């Protein structure tokens, strides 16, 4: 669309956008405010936005097995890590596309490692266990889903026979099916085979549920890539698989990252399947629902702390990869 020139109208456009932004982030900010309040203050009829004593006690109760003094060093070390993230982000922001993705990956790896050594320095509660479950399931789903999705998506992009169409359309039909249609047979099967309550089963289930979307999205990215590169490689004697791994994958990174982000959101956010297939190995979304049904005010602040804790990893990931999400959708997915 043509650009508006009138300065007053332009100011109004910005104002409207700021309004939308406030609308979008208010629930998150409110949850954050609640999470650092004492239950009494969170339940006041006139909610206070500034005039209250902030407290970390909700996070302490959520994360630690017993209230202890070891919460402060953990919190401080995490704040240091956060500072490193911000610095790395600042340093890399202006540089090129892939560098920011790499720095993001490095920071996320550091965070995961730090997470794994946490029980060595503090006695963590069950919530920590749920977080680890979520992390394991998300990473495993991501790895399997993207690697087989890349193979499938690439083949579907390069082969134009009727079979390719049949696969794509049935994948789309699968995507439309309600989760419960799979959930109960999965539950039935898991009970019979002894895979109930295991990480591996839920991971495979999530891979399958996500596969239709992954192959559609990756296919549209691979379709954008020129044929000449791989043809040249194949004339030089490389096999299809070699040229795919050595030529195509390195230039398809932006699309793969975009698809990975969607997969990550799906796996991390999935509630129903985890609820149906897990009994003791809860993931974070299942864990938080157990805080939501109570009317008790003490629960509300802990639920707020849990909400913020669940959201934080997503915010970190998106901080690094937002550009890829938007650019990826602009370049490929939307044309599929």
């Amino acid at each position: 669309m043509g650009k508006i020139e009138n300065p007053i109208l332009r100011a109004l456009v910005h104002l409207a956008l700021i309004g939308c932004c406030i609308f979008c982030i208010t629930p998150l900010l409110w949850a954050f405010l609640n999470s650092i309040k004492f239950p009494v203050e969170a339940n006041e009829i006139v909610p206070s936005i500034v005039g209250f004593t902030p407290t970390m006690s909700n996070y302490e109760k959520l994360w630690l097995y017993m209230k202890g003094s070891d919460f402060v060093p953990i919190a401080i070390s995490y704040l240091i890590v956060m500072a490193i993230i911000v610095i790395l982000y600042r340093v890399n922001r202006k540089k090129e596309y892939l560098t920011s993705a790499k720095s993001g990956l490095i920071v996320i790896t550091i965070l995961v490692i730090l997470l794994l050594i946490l029980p060595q320095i503090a006695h963590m509660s069950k919530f920590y266990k749920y977080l680890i479950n979520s992390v394991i399931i998300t990473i495993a789903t991501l790895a399997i889903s993207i690697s087989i999705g890349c193979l499938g998506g690439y083949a579907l992009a390069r082969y134009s026979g009727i079979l390719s169409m049949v696969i794509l359309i049935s994948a789309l039909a699968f995507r439309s099916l309600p989760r419960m249609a799979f959930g109960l047979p999965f539950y039935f099967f898991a009970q019979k085979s002894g895979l109930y309550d295991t990480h591996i089963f839920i991971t495979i289930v999530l891979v399958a549920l996500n596969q239709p979307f992954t192959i559609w999205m990756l296919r549209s990215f691979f379709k954008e890539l020129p044929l000449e590169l791989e043809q040249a490689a194949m004339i030089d004697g490389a096999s299809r698989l070699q040229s795919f791994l050595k030529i195509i994958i390195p230039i398809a990174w932006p699309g793969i990252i975009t698809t990975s982000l969607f997969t990550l959101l799906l796996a991390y956010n999935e509630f129903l399947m985890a609820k149906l297939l897990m009994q003791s190995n809860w993931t974070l979304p299942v864990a938080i629902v157990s805080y939501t049904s109570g009317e008790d005010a003490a629960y509300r602040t802990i639920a707020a702390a849990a909400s913020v804790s669940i959201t934080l990893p997503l915010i970190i990931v998106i901080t690094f990869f937002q550009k890829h999400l938007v650019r990826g959708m602009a370049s490929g997915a939307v044309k599929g």
Partner: protein
Amino acid sequence: MDRNTFLKFVTPSIIVMVLLMVIPLFMAIWLSFNFVTYTNLDAPRFVSLSNYKEILADPDFWLALRFSFIYILIIIPSKLLLGLLIALLLDQVKKRRGIYIACLLVPFILTPVVGTLMFRTLFDRGGLIYFLLERLFNYKFLLNTQSVRFLIIAYGVWAGTPFSMITLFAGLLTLPKNSMEAATVDGATAFQKLWYVVFPHLKPLITFITLIGIMDAYRIFDPVLVMTRGNPAFKAETLMYYNYRIATSVQRLGKANAMSVLTIIGIFIVLIPFLRLTYKEQMEKN
């Protein structure tokens, strides 16, 4: 690429989809003809169509069906309109675009159960909107059938708009410059440009968002669970939630599977025109 290489490349995906999607579907159909609870998992009893008959005679099923349709009918147009509006606004600015997008994406990335919980907290006692409604309009927000349904729909719009916004915005970025310029030279008004140039360009995206939107709205579950606190007394069930309740609190797995089969038939009736359209489009492109 020849057929054999194609098959080698797609085999892993196909195996996963067939093993974990096609087989469970047949299992669901088989289970739907049996009487199964959590106590007789090993020995299902064949009851032919009685599960289906029970569901169709259940008033809760029809309530859930109605609410699901109301939900879809409100959500999809709101998502498209609001998304387009924000995308057009976003297209006008260059400065601070990154920050705007980051904030606007928040509802999209939030875990649905968490987002719903945050949304609900605003309306609970001690919440911001509860307070504002009471002060400004002297209105006390109480949870009842109407308000819970309103909250579920409002959350759906709030959480669903960012996806359509970002998709349409991406579409606006690829708008061909010369057709816009031609329209300007011809003296088209802003509205005419929108109607004759922008809309046709965005049409495939609008179809795409509608398609994905119907699929997702049809199986809406997490917000219902959190908003109603799992209490069926609110009468704000969707089809998926009704299905879940039959499987968990009523503990009738066979009946729940019959319900799944019914929802599958339902979604296919809705989606067949879209699937045919996609098929034609893709065939033309190849």
